[in-house]
């Protein structure tokens, strides 16, 4: 029996023989690390679609070099797996760059690898400020949580809202959002009349909404992660009889994502959100982008998709600028200060922090042609990440 076992184990280990691919001099390999499976799979699907669309529209060559993607699945929040995949894709598959990264813990773990191996890393979604400080070779093309929420807080104070009740999910991103929103709001002269943090996996918001209603604010600020919760809280707001024309509802992009709007129905009318992208943005470039995206994937793009799309743009643009050189120092130097027009509007990479500088949009849910859509009502251009300024 043990002899068979030995043979079995031996053959399993032998199967692991990796074949070192002989890579052509002019192929640049990018390790794309995302949660393709598990509860965050949809975010990876959209981001991957954005990447695929960019490559379809611009070909698979960036100047002199050919681009090859190596996709790796982290399965969800798994920093040890993300770190291992980043290491493997560099060591085994000879990747020259890293890209993707939907979740903060995974991005932080991979940042260590980027710093040690000196590889250019493009973060296309994860939104915590400290990520770009973990490696000098990271550039981000998505957003930071403070960038959005501080802007919303300041905007709210400037636009006649004096008293606010805040409700956020009790974990990293939610607390981050709450801190920066309150800061922006209070700096603008507003007053926080109450706040609550609900548990991450919260099935029922009605009672919390009741508490908010009882403190009689001008507006309620909500932060919940995407998925099923935005629709649930939207419905709870309607059930408790919150009139959005009297008590404004403020939140971040995920609150009025497309599927959330469909679930909430008319209860969502009047909700104000801050976002760096929504498919309803009324610019010629975005309209073309949305059409191309729909033709290819039969659904509308969201901010995950545009993060991937712009991430690829940054990669292509830097490779073209360096003439195909792929070492970290050259690429990050090329990335610093790079500016371009994206479907979301003009954006650039801050040379000091390597983080994204972009226009932050304020949207309101209205009925357009019988359908519920996010309509832009205001915008703040050239917003840098305030989170960096305090470090």
């Amino acid at each position, binding site marked *: 029996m043990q002899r068979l076992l030995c043979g079995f184990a031996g053959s399993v280990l032998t199967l692991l023989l990796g074949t070192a691919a002989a890579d052509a001099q002019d192929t640049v390999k990018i390790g794309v690390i995302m949660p393709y*499976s*598990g*509860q965050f*799979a*949809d975010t990876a*699907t959209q981001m991957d679609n954005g990447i695929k669309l960019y490559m379809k529209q611009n070909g698979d060559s960036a100047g002199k070099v050919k681009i090859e993607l190596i996709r790796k699945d982290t399965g969800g929040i798994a920093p040890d797996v993300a770190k291992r995949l980043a290491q493997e894709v560099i060591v085994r598959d000879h990747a020259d760059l890293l890209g993707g990264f939907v979740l903060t813990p995974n991005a932080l773990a991979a940042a260590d690898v980027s710093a040690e191996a000196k590889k250019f890393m493009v973060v296309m979604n994860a939104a915590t400020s400290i990520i770009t400080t973990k490696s000098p070779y990271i550039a981000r093309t998505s957003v930071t949580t403070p960038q959005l929420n501080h802007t919303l807080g300041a905007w709210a104070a400037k636009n006649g809202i004096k008293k606010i009740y805040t409700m956020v999910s*009790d974990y990293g991103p939610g607390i981050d959002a709450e801190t920066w929103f309150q800061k922006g709001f209070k700096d603008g002269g507003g007053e926080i009349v109450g706040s*609550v*943090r*609900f*548990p*991450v*996996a*919260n*099935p*029922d918001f*009605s*009672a*919390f909404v*009741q*508490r908010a209603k009882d403190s009689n604010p001008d507006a309620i600020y909500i932060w919940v992660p995407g*998925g*099923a*919760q935005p*629709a*649930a809280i939207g*419905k709870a707001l*309607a*059930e*408790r*009889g919150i009139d959005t024309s009297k008590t404004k509802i403020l939140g971040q992009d995920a609150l009025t994502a497309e*599927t*959330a709007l*469909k*679930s909430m*129905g008319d*209860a969502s009318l009047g909700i104000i959100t801050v976002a760096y992208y929504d498919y309803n943005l009324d610019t010629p470039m975005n309209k073309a982008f949305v059409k191309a995206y729909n033709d290819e994937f039969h659904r509308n793009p969201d901010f995950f998709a545009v993060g991937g799309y712009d991430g690829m743009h940054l990669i292509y643009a830097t490779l073209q600028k360096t003439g195909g050189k792929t070492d970290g120092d050259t690429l990050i130097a090329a990335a610093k200060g790079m500016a371009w027009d994206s479907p979301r509007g003009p954006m650039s990479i801050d040379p000091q922090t390597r983080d994204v500088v972009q226009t932050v949009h304020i949207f309101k849910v209205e009925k357009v042609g019988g359908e519920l859509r996010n309509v832009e009502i205001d915008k703040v251009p050239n917003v840098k990440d305030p989170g960096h300024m305090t470090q």
Partner: protein
Amino acid sequence: MPPVFGVLFDGLAYGTLLFLLSVGLSVTLGMMNFVNLAHCSFAMLGGYVTVTLMNRLGWPFFATLPAAFVAAAAASVVLERAFFRRFYNASDLEQCLLTIGIVFVSIAAAAYIYGTDQQPVQLPAFLRGSIAFAGLNFAVYRLFLIGIALIITVVLVATLEMTRFGAQVRAAVNNQRMARGLGIDVDALFAITFALGSGLAGLGGALAIDLVGLDPSFAFTYLIYVLIVVSVGGLGSIGGSLAAAMLLGVSDIAGKYYVPALGSILIYLVMTVLIMLRPAGIFGRR
């Protein structure tokens, strides 16, 4: 009315959902000791059937509910005949592994066919909104859920207590060998009970969409809650499942409302303590 009643009401509604999802597993586990971890896959199937019929074929919401029940029941019959039959005498661990494999396959299949995003469902207008009563708001859909659960409980209890079939089920749950010895065809009984239980799970999955959403990871996420309800309530007991589901629904929602910093700790604490005090469950036998 003080807000505690609103919280209780919401907790009861959430509890009825847990009840619908769990009652089938409790009875089949109690009768045949077959560890079916794929139980929530049938719930997920029911949910996706509703979504497909409503969003792609335009069926009204109410018509999709029996369809969800039937689809889940039918799928369970197929799986039972083809597969599970052969493993009734296998060890618990093998049954675990087999049914976990089925859960994985179902999650991947759902992701492949429907994609990974949330499935929205548009309830008919009269089920939306809320009714104001004594200073509190009661959501119409939650009233509907509680109503359905009551009807189903009555039907189930009536079947168990007043029909021959029910008497046979009770006998088989109580003492399988004796029941066989008396000539009751326990295998056929089990097939029917399994189908009914899975059908109820499918119905629960369809009703859950508006409350907690639907995506491919549903089969895994709700498995924990279902296991908690089944073990706290006692295997093979409908009353136990109902009581446990209500208790857990209320303590989850009340706990998260009154002490949000504790998060889900309260529900797990309640569960652990209850099982330590009454290992066989609230209404369990062994």
